[in-house]
């Protein structure tokens, strides 16, 4: 969010949010099987379902400069 502000954006809002766990990551081909296995091994089990969050931000360029 701070990088959006620094770029000049205003009305920055945090919108839809989805948990992104290891099971979700495994659906993406860019997360290799080796990486998924590593994640399952080294990330504590209680975090497996929420390793990250997919967040949608909206922002606006000011109407006048």
């Amino acid at each position, binding site marked *: 969010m701070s*990088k*959006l502000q*620094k*770029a*000049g*954006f205003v009305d920055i809002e945090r*919108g*839809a949010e*989805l948990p*992104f766990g290891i099971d*979700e*990551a495994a*659906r*993406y*081909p*860019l*997360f*290799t099987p*080796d*990486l998924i296995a*590593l*994640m399952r091994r*080294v*990330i504590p089990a209680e*975090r497996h379902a929420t*390793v*990250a*969050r*997919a*967040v*949608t*931000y*909206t*922002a*606006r*360029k*000011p*109407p*006048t*400069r």
Partner: protein
Amino acid sequence: MTAEAVHPTTPRGGDLLGQAAIKDLVRQAYRDIIGKPTAFDVVHRLYDPGQLALVPPGAVAQALGVGNPIRAAGLRPGEVVIDLGCGGGIDTILAAHAVGSHGKALGLDMLPEMLEVASRNAAARGITNIGWLEGELEAIPLPDESVDVAVSNGAVNLSPRKSRVFAETYRVLRPGGRFVTADNFVDEDLPPEILTNPAAWAG
């Protein structure tokens, strides 16, 4: 704790990969999946059935976003939209539908092979108010103040220069223009074994 992108440019402990290495890694990772039959099913938790009915199977199969920026963008007929890191074109195609024949949707991707896939996907549905741009998010090949809306879906995190991406997006937006970006964030540090795994950068 401050939220950090999953793929921080400079993870704690110093640089793990240089910018050029990150870009090469991302390019190669995406090249490897172009045209491959996929059944990754990332779309059904992100898109409405009504949206999915508008896009061809090829665009669904190549969809690798993490959110639904088109839903949040509130696109209006006649607007010009750019999809930053369009991949197989699912969001570009949805944008083209939303802005109608008097508007236009542009898909930007750094891989010409991916743009060919996206172009074929749009053509499969006879969509004509759509265009494709080869380039990088850090140097958007458009004039200043030339689009009404910019969207991105799981793409900004792939850039090692996120501030530059935001500055470029700001530049090409018209005054009052909107930016909608969906990406992954983590609240806590990932274990170093993950941060040092090159595949994590492109994932």
